[in-house]
């Protein structure tokens, strides 16, 4: 595990938390009922109406199946730490380092500008900057008006960007370019510094826009 951000919060947004709790309740019940000889197929139907399907798919493991087959190998701590690179909304997983808006502009102008344009609006790839209202979809869906969590920027940029040389930015360069992008979107002032503590604290304009999927089949079109 990378060092967690100091002020770890369990609050993942109303949407995520509510969804988590609902799913958690079901999952815990199911795990408890499952038992060592159980199998996914014996579990309660999900909210997606999946229950009827399991009998078709899953041949339950035989009663004498072992609790553990003994396949696979224990993962060394170092392996887990090296591979566990994602960043959670509360900042868990953010590495040491820091970056300023000014540093980020230098990173952006060398690493990002070709695909995202001089001001983050020109493309040819995804638009990064916008404060347009939501109804102007899709051209205007960008970081400033659509991304609900600033931590997602670190998770995504560190994994997938720059597109042709992913994984080559340092942690501080990543913090910096995120600071710059957030500044272009009017979310951060010019003197902002991003690090493992400040990034999760950024309140994104779209944060409260997201709602849990309320489709559940049946007679109502949602």
């Amino acid at each position, binding site marked *: 595990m990378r060092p967690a951000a100091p002020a770890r919060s*369990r609050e*993942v947004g109303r949407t*995520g938390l509510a*969804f*988590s709790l609902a*799913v958690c309740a079901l*999952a*815990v019940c*199911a*795990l408890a009922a*499952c038992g060592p000889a159980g*199998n*996914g197929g014996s*579990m309660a*139907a*999900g*909210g*997606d*109406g*999946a229950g009827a*399907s*399991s009998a078709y*798919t*899953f041949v339950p*493991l035989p009663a004498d199946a072992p*609790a553990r*087959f003994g*396949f*696979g*190998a224990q*993962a060394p701590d170092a*392996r*887990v730490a090296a*591979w*566990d690179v*994602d960043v*959670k*909304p509360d900042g868990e997983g953010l590495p040491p380092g820091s970056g300023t808006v000014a540093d980020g502009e230098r990173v952006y102008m060398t690493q990002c500008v070709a695909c995202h344009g001089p001001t983050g609006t020109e493309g040819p790839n995804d638009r990064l900057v916008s404060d347009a209202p939501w*109804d102007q979809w899709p051209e205007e*869906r960008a*970081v400033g008006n*659509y991304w*609900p*969590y600033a*931590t*997602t920027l670190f*998770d*995504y940029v560190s*994994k*997938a960007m720059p597109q042709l040389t*992913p994984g080559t930015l340092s942690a501080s360069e990543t913090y910096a370019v995120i600071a710059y992008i957030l500044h272009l979107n009017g979310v951060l002032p010019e003197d902002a510094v991003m690090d493992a503590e400040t990034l999760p604290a950024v309140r994104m304009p779209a944060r409260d*826009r*997201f*709602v*849990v999927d309320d*489709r*559940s*089949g*049946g007679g109502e*079109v949602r």
Partner: protein
Amino acid sequence: MASNERSGLTRRAWLATTSGVIAAGVLKTQADAVKLMAQEAPAGRAASSMIPGRLVSEVGRRAPAERPRRLLRAEALSSSSRTPLQDLYGIITPADLHFERHHGGIPDIVAEAHELLIHGLVDRPMVFRMADLKRYPAVSRICFVECSGNGGGAYNRDRMPTEITPQALDGLLSTSEWVGVPVSTVLREVGVRRGASWVLAEGGDSAMMSRSVPLEKIMDDALLAYAQNGEAIRPEQGYPLRLLLPGWEGNTQVKWLRRIEITDRPTMTRDETSKYTDPLGDGTARQFSFVMDAKSVITFPSYPYALPDRGWWEIKGLAWTGRGRVTRVEVSTDAGRSWVDAEMQPPVLPKCTVRFRHLWEWDGREAVILSRATDETGYLQPTVQQLWEARGERTSYHHNHQRAWKVAADGAVTFGLGDLV
């Protein structure tokens, strides 16, 4: 000429046939063909029966005249390609025609060196090689995979297409027999701790494509899939290992799967926040819209086909739902004024496409044909007006509304939804 007439074969037909045979690689040279032409085919014998056929081969190939192809977008750097729905039969998609959607290209992965790490809220973090995973009791499942962006080309009132094929509109849909080990089986090995409620699935591609999935779904019917239609999964589909979540949007079924972290909350990755969320008309956006709702598409007749004459035609298509089984498919040949039940060709499997057909006597007058599916929850595939009303006209993803085709009096078929809205 007299002998040719006796044999029922004109010289012209001979020429056409032999050139076809040359194209097929049966004959090496035109000289062979000329030699063959010198012979006379006895009455009742096909030209193909006059020479021995090709020998066996290690890997087969399609008949040269059959050229189903995935459809690429015009851009050189396209990251998706579409299944030729109108060219296929039954429900299984040949693996090399399965639609593609990549977020960082197709990685080259050496299966023997590939490892899956499972860690997080577990008793024992573990790594599994492919040989380990293949040793577990396996299951097979025939189900569809559909990109939730499929069909978005026929949603915008102002940009409703007319000249669009089933492939171009809905080709981000494919069906395969997948084989793998239930994730629930492998999770016994690591021991999931109480309090766990989500998993993060991460790929080994250059985007390290990541999605959060509720543990409930993982325990219900998720597979670690390593085979597709009888062979190892194709590189485009996640070789050597992908997550398979029957009935859920394709993006969640992470390909080139390399890491699973058991968590107590979603990670809020890019592809579950800024992408694959559905902006609604009320200013909110629907998140974690995992399940693919009931949908059907008529694949024949469809653009650019033209019915050559009136009379009996079989309307054919595919229906599917992520919420269990399709229980009914209806077809209308009068622009939705009346509906009749279509035949559903067994098997009708849960979270799988089903082939439907309806025998139709076309009277030669302009007609608009539609289909609509009902699933086992009682959900009826909505009209586009119903989706506009429920989600607004600018939403994205999950465009499962009814499709229409217009058959003109001259038999020409075009996409017909625009005429109905």
